Each structure stands twice: as C-alpha cells, then as structure tokens.
C-alpha cells in the first residue's frame, strides 16, 4: 500500500480503523480461494481466458478471432492456425454482510458497568472485523462492498476499490445503529441480485436465525460459485452465562422476559448453544462454507490474523 494512502487512513481517526489497528493488518493478505470475475487485471484467478502473460492452452482458430492471437510459431511448424490461450488474472470482489440487528448490540457499555471490566458489543466486534477486512481488500487492490442489515437491508454500499470507498464504508459502519429483529435468510435472498460479480461473501452475524433458512439462502451464492465465509460472532456471556444469582432475561429482539438463575441453567444452556453452533459448523463444512466462530473475548486483530493464517494453510 502506498505510504501516503496509509497515512491518510491513519489520520482519519475512524472508530473502527485507526493507526494501532492498521499495524496488525499490514502483513495480512486476503486471497480468494475460488476464481473470481473481474474486468480488471489483478492478483486473483479469473474464469475468463485470453491474451496474457500466463500460457495455459491452444485452440483452433475460428474466423472472427483476432489474428493477433494466432501463434505464428505453431503455424510455421504445423501449418495450422491455432490461438494461444492464457489465464487472465483479475481483481477480487469482497461482499461484506454485517448483521446490525438488536441481538448484535449485546455486550459493551452495559456489561462494562455491570461486571466492571472492558467489554465490546457483538456489533462493534463485527464492525471492527468488517473495517479490517475492507481495509485489507482495498489495500491489496481488490474491491469491497458493504451491506448492513437487520430484518431487512438497512444500507448497501456497492463494491469499490478506492480509499475513498473505504472511508465511505467506515462512515457507514460508524453511523449505523442496531435495528430490530434478524432475518438473515431473507436479507441474503434480497441482496443476491445486488452482488453482480462472483467473489467472496463474508457474512458477519450472530446467526440467530433458522440455520436451514440461512444455508438455503446461501446455496444461491454457492451455486453461483461465490466463496461464502461465515463469521459467527458471539459474546463471551452468550457462550458462558455469567455468574449472577438471579436474572430477568429480556429478549433483545422480541422484548420477552424470562427470570432464571444462570447458575442453575448454565450447563444445560451451554449444551444447547453448543449443539446449535455444532449444527451450523457441520452444515457449513458439508457445503464447503468457511465457518469461523468468534468470541468477543478474543481481540479481533488476533482472531482475524489467526483466521487468515489458517485460511492460507487450507
């Protein structure tokens, strides 16, 4: 990344992306695991083949083909017209779908006040991840788009590869407020027409929806040869209920109330939650969807670094 652009990003002082965070992201590179479509040359494999530096195959010349593509050396040896094919490299498009439903607001200030320790809400965590991914994508010359949703699409920023586009994304993340209920599957279906080129779809959500519905919607993307990545964000107190004597649990989205003693139900709760996580993970694996569970307790830089490192090994 050019130094002056980096400094520009650092000096912006955005909530979700500042100089401290950028230091962690400098050495990271997000690559596409599938071929992606693009009109510009880039570092990622394109399904289109043509004249480029990397030779891949020959084919018979048909009238209409540019004669510049004819391999004359082959013609001299074999007296046949053949065209020399090469794999065109293109840029990657990364679509970020960030859940901004009410359930994503869990954590943050309320927990800091109550438990007396630093805490980050799931939405903030998701935003940090989205910002970092956007920065990584643009830094390596690829395109990135952002879609914020709750039960509907709240905002959509088409893909772009410029730093001004990055700022647009960051601003959108910052000014966003969590909404109401979640409907991941519905939003996936609605946003499908918006993602015109194949690329990476990164869904950042707590996935508190019907898994079958979610994966049903994701199947459309998979069918179109998107690489789908699920970032499952859960708060540490979701993963393990806090030790409080008695709690009035209020559903963030439906506002229903339920009084219970976390210590009493802790084990049973954890068991059911793990069943839910396991079912999503196994379904994702069967569909070759990249699934990653993030706990807000883990610093997002570290979590992202580990994910990208692991992704590189696959």
């Amino acid at each position, binding site marked *: 990344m050019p130094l002056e652009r980096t400094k520009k990003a650092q000096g912006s002082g955005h909530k979700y992306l500042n100089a401290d965070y950028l230091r962690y992201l400098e050495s990271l590179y997000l690559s596409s695991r599938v071929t992606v479509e693009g009109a510009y040359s880039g570092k990622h494999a394109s399904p289109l083949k043509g004249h480029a530096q990397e030779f891949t195959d020959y084919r018979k010349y048909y009238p209409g083909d540019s004669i510049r593509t004819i391999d004359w050396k082959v013609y001299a040896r074999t007296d046949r017209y053949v065209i020399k094919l090469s794999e065109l490299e293109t840029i990657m498009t990364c679509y970020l779908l960030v859940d901004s439903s009410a*359930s*994503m*607001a*869990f954590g943050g200030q*309320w927990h800091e006040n*109550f438990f007396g320790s630093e805490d980050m809400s*799931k939405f903030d965590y998701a935003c940090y991840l989205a910002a970092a991914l956007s920065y990584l994508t643009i830094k390596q010359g690829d395109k990135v788009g952002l879609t914020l949703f709750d039960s509907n699409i709240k905002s959509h920023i088409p893909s772009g590869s410029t730093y001004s586009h990055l700022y647009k994304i960051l601003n959108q993340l910052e000014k966003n407020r969590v909404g109401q209920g979640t409907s991941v599957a519905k939003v996936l279906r609605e946003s499908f027409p918006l993602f015109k080129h194949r690329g990476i779809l990164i869904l950042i959500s*707590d996935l*508190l929806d019907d898994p079958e519905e979610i994966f049903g919607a994701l199947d459309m993307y998979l069918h179109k040869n998107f690489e789908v990545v699920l970032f499952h964000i859960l*708060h540490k107190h*979701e993963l393990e209920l806090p030790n*409080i*004597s*008695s*709690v*009035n*649990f*209020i*559903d*963030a*989205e*439906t506002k*229903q109330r*339920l*009084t*219970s003693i976390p*210590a*009493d*139900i*802790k*084990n*049973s*709760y954890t*068991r*059911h*939650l793990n069943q*839910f996580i396991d079912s999503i993970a196994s379904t994702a694996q069967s569909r070759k969807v990249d699934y990653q569970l993030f706990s807000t307790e883990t610093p997002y830089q570290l979590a992202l670094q580990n994910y990208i490192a692991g992704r590189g090994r696959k």
Partner: protein
Amino acid sequence: MNLLIGTILFDNPALWIGAIALGIPVMIHLLTRRTPRDMVFPTLRFIRMAKANQSNIHRLRHIILLLLRTAMFLFILLAFLKPIITESSDLATQDPDAGKSIIILADASASMGYLNDGVTSFSRAKVAALEILDHCSAKDKINLIIMGSVPKLSFDAPSENLVITRKDIREAEVLPDHADINAALAEAVKQLGVDGAPPSIKKEIYFVSDFQRSNWSNVNFGIVNENVQMVFIPVGPEEASNCAIISVSVLPASPTVMEPVEIICKVANYGNRSSQVPLELVFKDDEILTQEITIEPHMTASTSFRVRINDSGLYECRLRIPGNTSLSAGDRLTAKDGLEIDNQRFFTFNVAQKVNVLLVSDAKTDDVKSGSRFLDRAINPFLESQDATVVTSVIRSDKLDALNAASAQVIILSEINELSLDKAEILINYLRDGGSIAYFHVGGASAHNLKLLTEASEGDYAAPYTLTGQVDLSIKNEHAVLAGANFDHRILRKFKETGELGDLKFYSYFTTERVKQKGQVLLSFDDGNVAMAEKTVGLGTMLLCNFGCSLESCDMPRHTLFVPLVHEIIKGLRPSADARNSFEVGHQCSMTTESVTQKDHVEFRDPDDTVIEGTLDVSSSGAFIFFPRTHKCGFYRIFVKNSPVGSVAVNVNALESNLEALDISQLKELAKISRAQFYAALGNQSSISELLSGKHLWHYFLLIAIVLLALEQVTVMILKR
C-alpha cells in the same frame, strides 16, 4: 436458671435469642429471589430450552437448600443452648432456690466388699454418693445413713452441711455386717419427717447398694410416703463370682473325749463356673487338715472332717478357703473370688470329759423307789467311777435356771411339780437353742406343765397329745403293754430285733388325745394311748414319755431293757448340731462358762485382742458372758488373769455371700412403685449425672449440624450437575 421443654432441658437458654439467626438463610433466600437483575439477552431460545430441561429437584433446589440450611442453623443454635435430655424431669428440674430433703442410704454390708476389677462395690457406692452430693444445691438438706446391722447416721436430722457429709462418705468403710435395710429405711423415713421442712419441699431417698436379693427382697417400702421420690443406684457387680463357706456344724455338737467328731462344712459356689475349692481346717492353730471340694455353679456342697479329740476343753477352729479357687478341668483360669470375708468361718465347740445330763426332779431324795432315782442310776450305773460316759446333775425344778440348763446336753424331767412360767420359758429357750428334754409324766402336774410349756413357747411348741385323764391298772392287777413302736426312729432302732419292748408292763399312765399333725408318736399302748412322742422345738427336741420310771408306774426299772433304753434316749436326744457354735457379726453375742467366779477379774477382748466392754453375770452354776456388740469376724474371748477361759466365734452372715442381685424392674415391682417416685441409675458417675441433671446432647446436635452441612454441600454438587 434452666428452662425445660418436655424432657429436654436447656442449660443455656439465654441463647434462645440466637433463634433470630434462623431467619438468616430465609432472608438470604428471599432477598436473592426478589431482586433479579434485568439483562437484555440476544435470544431466549437457548435459555428456554435449558429451563425446560430443569428437573423438579432443580426447581425445588432452593426449597431443599433452604430447609437444609435452616435446619443446620437450628441445630447449631440448639447445640449452643446446651440441651440436656432427662429421664427424670422431677429430679432434674428442681428449683435450686427451693431446696429439698435428701437421705442417702449407703449399703455398707459385707457383700459390698466384693472386689471387681480392683474396686469394691462399696468404693463405687462412695463415688455414687459423692456424685449425688455434687448435684445438691446449697439449700438442700441431706443426711447420710450407712446401712449396717445398725443404721449409722451422719446427723441427727438432715443438714445443709455438705462438707461433713462428704467427709463421712469418704471415711466410711465397708462393714462385715448383714445390713438391716428395714431399720435403715425406717430411719430414713423418720429423718424425712423430722427435717422440719414444709410439705411442699421435695423429698428424696437414694439407695446405693448392690441390691442383694437375699437382703432386699423383704424390704418393706410401704412405709415410704408417696410424695417421697426413691432413687435406686446399683453398684454391685453385674456378674459376681464368689465361693463361700456358709455353715459349719459339729456332730455331735458337744462331743466327749475320744468320741468321733464330724465337722461338716457347707460351701456354696455363687459363680457361673464350677469350681474346685480347697478347704483348710485350722485346728487349735497347730494342725491343718485339708480337703478339696468340687462345686457346680450356683450349688452348695458339703464335706466333713472326721476328728477324734483327746483332751476336753473349748476348741477354737477356723475353716478357710486358702487363696483363690481354681476352675474345674478344661478351664485353668483362676476364678475370681471377689468376696474374701466369707472365705473363712470361725467356730468353737466344747469337748466334755463326759456327757452332762441334768435330771430335774422334785422327788424326795430319801425315796429310794422314786423313778428319778432309778433314772439316775440308769444314766450312770458306775456311780462315781471314772468309767462313766454320762454324768448327771440332779436338781429340783425351782433351782432350774438358764446357766445350769446351758451346761447340760440333755435335760430329763421326772416327777416334777407344777412349773412356774419363767421355768417353762427357760426350758423352751433351751429347746430353741438346740437342747433336748425328755419329760417323764408322773403325777398330776404333768398336764399343767405341758399346757404351760405350750403357752411359754408362744406357738413354737404344741404338744403331740393332750393328757385327758389318768389310768391306774394296778388296782385291777392289770397292766398295759406297748402295742406300737416306730423302730425307724434313732432311739428305738436298736430294739427292733430283740422285741423286748413288748415285754414291758405299764400300770399307771395318762389317757391321751392325739393332736393331729403335731409331733411324732414313737410308742403306743395296747389301749391306743400314746406312750412316747417326739416334738421338735426350734433346734431342739422334746421327748414326751407317758409313763414314769418308778416300779409303781411300770416294771421297766427291773427290766434289762431299762439302762439301754435310757442311754439310747440320751444318745438320741443329744444335740446333733449346735447352732450356737458361732454368732453373726454386728450383733451381740454371749456364752456361758463355769470357769469364772464372782471374784475373778474378767477382761473381754475382741479378735484383735483389744479390750472391749462386756457384761458378766455370775451365778452359782457358772457365768453368763455377754458382748453387747461385735464388729469383726473372729473369736471374742474372755480372759481371767490373762488366761483365756471362754471364747465365742463371730462370723459374717451367710446371706451376704450370695451376691445375686435384684434388677431395676424387680426392685420397682418389689417396691410397688408405679408412680413417678421410682428412679434408677447405674452406679457410675455419668449415669447418676444423667439421672440427676440429664444427658448432654449438644455434641449430637453439633454432629447433626455438620452432617446437614455436608448434605447441603452434596446437594449443591448434585444440583449443579
């Protein structure tokens, strides 16, 4: 200040205020239940699923834990309250300010000297008595009665002076006596009546004893008022093992020189194992005869030592069980014999040069045809010859007294006038003490005398027949003969073969009317009248002969049968066993001797050779020696010029040897105490303490609290899974 709830006494009731602490778990529970914190949660989906899986036990967790914790607090509180459970709320809940009257009856009889595990029953009794005192308040009035043959009191009336009472208990020693329980109980009842306390004051009698069945089974508890509480504290052994010499008899009781003497000893085994008991007869302190006797459990056995005495005089003998007895074959363990005092028995007997017969007759001394004269000659045909084995002393009936009666082995009454009542009493007492009398009926005084003897005996003597009239066949020149004889009797046994008894002719005798069930008829005339009959009185025998020995009454003096018959009568009537060869310790004892005269200076000495007090009554026929009280087993002697002239043996009462005890239920039944008067405790300090102040329960409550704590922790662990 104590507080009683039911039969549980709380020694620290001030801590009831701690009951507030019982609210702590409840408050915690309620507070935690009523202040749930609001928490906005991403979804209730998994919480609902978790709650749905909660079991009923989970839902009841708080109730269970609340109950456990509350119970734990309750038991901790109860532990601090020092709860005391008491069987006898009346004994344990006295108001110490009110005071009470207490009589402690401590058994100090010989059986209390039983040694078990190195401690005597009496030592346990002292410990128990001191424990009772420890539970008395300063306002209680107490008296201690040591139960021996005579009750011994610490104070004339119950006193508040516990110091003296304690001192008396500590200094008390076991006595060799047989305790007079009834006398002690009567004294206790009397003490409770004279203490001057108002009727509302509670009264208690504590019996601390081994509760020997032989001693306690005839105690009259009916004299105790119903408002008096009786506490029985047994301190005797649970299983006693004791061998004892219970009696010694000399046969004949007053042998003559060179006459075979049989010393019969009776030994009892009161233990649960058969024992081989060695016996030693210490004879005149220079010769020891030994024997061994095997006795089955709870049985008695007799054995005898046969001796022949060369010299006349008074003999002091001692029969003893040396050391410990040993068990029978197969079990060589040494049997315990915890009671030493009954392992020896002292006895005396007189060896006379000749048999002394006292012939009492009021016939004229110059009447050569009197029956008494014939009798005198028949008894001692050798006159003054030294060959005589029997000698007679002839006296008139008005000269009869206790001393000359006591010196005779047999008294023969013949041709006596009407007796006075005091003479009749002398004869009856002589009979009771083991003497024998042959009474030949001659003259009209016989009917009166027989009636008088019956009156003087106060029921002990009933003649086997009554005299209804006199028969004189000599007028018609007729005679009667003997038609019936009991030849199985020792007197007549030797005349069975000869048949000479039928040759005797009787001219004068009395008509008789047989009294059924009284006495035994030995001879009868052909007209059906009784000729000779025998009746036992006390330990002695009265032989009634319905004929005289003069020629006017019968031809017997002419008959060769006469002398043998008289000697067989004397031999048959000689006392077989002298009951007075020893006296019971704790009581008075007496003896007669002819060796003391009015001028002699007499010293009375106890078995330790210590000079003690005694009384002496000297008459023309001898001296009557009286020891007012004995306190030790052994020989009580009288000395004249430092030489012993008489001795009397004193032994422990044989009843003290049988240590079989009444148990608590039997005592209750015996005492006929169905009311709340009856209490009992074991003789140890803790049992008495439990009875008088209750049993401490605080450690049990603390233990329960700990168990509840553990249970609570286990419940929490189970519920958390």
